[in-house]
């Protein structure tokens, strides 16, 4: 019943796109697992890892787009939610190391032994269990978003001011997580993971599973976002984006709409971060860097804000370019990234998806005039 509602709520393009994402999530891991190394279409392990990473980035981009593209809230701190989810997962993975750490301490992770902790800090309790960590992955970013959003939206902090606040938030978290006393590994963060749910994080099979899980999460997020955006609620959301004051005068409780979508988006970012961490094998405070959040915004801008497909395409394209350029021409990458920001905002305000739609419309107009 619910699935049917979700499914029919989406447009045809989005439905196809969700299937495409799922297909990637199934085919890529299978090509890696089933084919012999020499095969022409064999997906090497690093590629598998890379695609898994991109899928997580795409989820983050979708989360940013949900608030920015559909509700007009430009969050410059979404990487903070991503990183918080990542830290929750990292804490679970740290607890799974057990006595296999360098110091072999059965209770304390290595960095705590190193920093002379006597006992486990209270907020680390419970992370031995996956279900607890999984719950925290959603709860921690959501709570932060709820607190920030509740204060900000109620006092009608909008536009650039909100952007600056979110940026200050992620900057403050960056500084906080750099501190050794925080109990999150300070500068080095959490790393040296061994197992997730009993399977080694290093093995290709686990990576294949994680890649599939990332694709599944992205597909799920697309479906949920599609449902939210397509519903009456979504219409109101878009109206808030375009004319907030008028919505208020019409009697809508604008704060509620914004808060809901902001928290939902933070939870999505948190889950994306949690899937990201076991695939890259480390989480450290630099994930909170303000630049990361802004880069995520760029993915959305490149792909096309206000569309659900755009952010995914943008995340894949920009990150593919990043992987390629930082390897081949490291000097050029920042120039390219910077130029991309400028070009997209000046020339492609609707992104690639928008450009495509524009071209198709022009084609159609030509055909119509020719006929």
């Amino acid at each position, binding site marked *: 019943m619910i699935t049917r509602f979700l499914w029919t709520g989406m447009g045809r393009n989005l439905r196809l796109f969700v299937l495409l994402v799922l297909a990637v999530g199934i085919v890529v891991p299978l090509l890696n697992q089933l084919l012999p190394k020499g095969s022409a279409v064999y997906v090497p392990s690093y590629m598998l890892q890379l695609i898994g990473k991109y899928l997580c980035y795409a989820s983050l981009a979708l989360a940013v787009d949900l608030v920015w593209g559909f509700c007009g809230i430009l969050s410059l701190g979404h990487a903070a939610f991503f990183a918080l989810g990542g830290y929750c997962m990292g804490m679970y993975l740290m607890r799974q190391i057990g006595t296999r750490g360098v110091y072999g301490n059965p209770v304390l992770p290595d960095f705590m032994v190193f920093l002379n902790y006597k006992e486990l800090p209270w907020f680390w309790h419970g992370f031995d269990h996956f279900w607890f960590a999984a719950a925290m992955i959603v709860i921690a970013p959501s709570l932060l978003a709820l607190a920030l959003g509740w204060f900000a939206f109620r006092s009608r902090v909008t536009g650039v001011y909100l952007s600056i606040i979110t940026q200050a938030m992620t900057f403050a978290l960056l500084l906080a997580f750099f501190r050794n006393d925080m109990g999150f590994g300070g500068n080095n963060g959490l790393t040296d993971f061994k197992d997730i749910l009993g399977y080694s994080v290093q093995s290709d099979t686990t990576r294949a599973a994680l890649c599939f899980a990332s694709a599944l999460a992205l597909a799920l997020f697309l479906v949920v976002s599609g449902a939210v955006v397509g519903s009456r609620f979504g219409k109101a959301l878009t109206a808030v984006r375009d004319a907030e004051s008028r919505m208020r005068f019409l009697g809508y409780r604008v704060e509620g709409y914004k808060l809901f979508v902001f928290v939902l988006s933070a939870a999505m970012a948190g889950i994306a971060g949690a899937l990201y961490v076991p695939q890259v094998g480390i989480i450290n405070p630099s994930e909170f860097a303000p630049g990361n959040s802004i880069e995520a915004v*760029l993915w959305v801008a490149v792909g096309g804000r206000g569309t659900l497909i755009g952010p995914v395409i943008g995340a894949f394209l920009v990150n593919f370019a990043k992987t390629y350029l930082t390897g081949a021409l490291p000097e050029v990458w920042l120039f390219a990234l*910077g130029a991309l920001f*400028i070009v997209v905002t000046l020339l492609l305000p609707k992104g690639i998806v928008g450009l495509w739609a524009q071209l198709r419309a022009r084609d159609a107009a030509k055909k119509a005039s020719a006929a």
Partner: protein
Amino acid sequence: MSQKRLLAGLLPVLAALFVAGSAMAADLATLVANLAAGGYSERDAAITALASSGEARAVPVLQALSAGELYVRTADKTVVIAKGSGKQLALVDAVTGKDSGSATEDDLDRIKVNNRLRGTIDAAMSALTLMNPDPKVRRAAAESLFTRRDASALEALDKALAAEKDLGIRQAMTEARAALVLASDAPAAQKVQAVAAVRERGDRDALGVLQAAAASPDAEVRAAASAAAEAVRQRLGAWQAAQNVWYGISLGSVLLLAAIGLAITFGTMGVINMAHGEMVMLGAYTTFVVQQTLRSVAPQLNELSVIIALPLAFLVSGAVGVLIERSIIRFLYGRPLDTLLATWGLSLVLQQAVRSIFGPTNREVSSPSWMSGSFHVGQIEVTYGRLWIVVFALLVFVTLLLLLRKTPLGLYMRAVTQNRPMASAMGIRTPRVDALTFGLGSGIAGLAGVALSQIDNVSPNLGQGYIIDSFMVVVFGGVGNLFGTLLGATALGIVNKFLEPYAGAVLGKILVLVFIILFIQRRPRGMFAQKGRSVE
């Protein structure tokens, strides 16, 4: 008796050696020669005698004696100071201080000292330096006695105090005397008086003396000392607070410099310039280039390099600012979020450009001599560098204020900000004013870069460290209000510095950020919100 006999024996020799020597020198020579004679007890007396002569030459002689570098030359029984190592030692005549050739250790006889003698020498030295004709040396001697609290120097100090004319040094000596009395076994009444004198001094050293005295066996002294220590502690606390205020003002001036350009571009134009930090960086690199050029072209101007860099940095950053406004920002008016993204991209490009040209490492920018060093106001230490930056920040602020209030350009700027169509209708060329306003804001960022090059690392990342702080200052102070920016910067600087001792630098900064985030929720338009029609 033996001394006299020895004197009688040596005098002719000495007289032969110093034909032209004055009576004073002869006197000194006798005293020095006495050091070499007799056993330890005679030597002790000789040291005291030499010290009480008050001769300036006595200082190096006694130092050498204490260090075991004072010898008697076997050939002619002259007392010499021998320096150096190895076979050949360079000799200096102990009495005249003149070069006296060299000799091997075999030709010399070391004048031996033991620990008791060293003690005598130390006491004698302080007595000597207390009588030194140079007032600076006398003051230093009094200060060092205060911290060393060597009760045996009390007699010498009393003597010096009686002879001292300089009021400031008398004061220092009185304080030192009080400290010595407290360390000695003087009667309780004297000690209580001494406590009062030390309390007058009221600095960290005084606190140390009083704390030591508070452990005295005498109840009366103990009570007086602990009460005085408490008073001094309170006074020190007040000074510490004052010092923190100064540090806060100093940090605030840096924030002000970084933010004031932003107050124009963001505050009056509403343009979110994420590349503002890079304008600051360009200013810092301009300073670097100016210094490099001057070093090769006109090294004599090096002291002035910072001042020469100021107008150049303004022009460089300002020109880049105008260029940015004309090529990017003018297409994005009314789309603040897009402006934010585009200028962020621009900041990446500028950073990478500077990194490609100058390299990723920190560049050395030297400070002129008039910016180094420090002085004290009471117990507050003020470094000249920081003082100049505070002065400079205020100068920039006042100039900018005058520019906006008193010049035609300022009038146009305010007109365009407040009502663009009306300004345009009145014949103001708004695009030109936009470009100039943005150029002005960027140019001021360049000026900030010159100042920051003196206290921060000049690297491609210089600007990034300030951009968030700058936005915080502008938003906190109230957008479009220069006085708000001034107060915001100062307040944030001071709050930061007061939090630091309790919370640590990083946590302090986090607390300030959280505070601002909460503050913006309460007052979304800052401390001094603009009112009226131009707000929305």
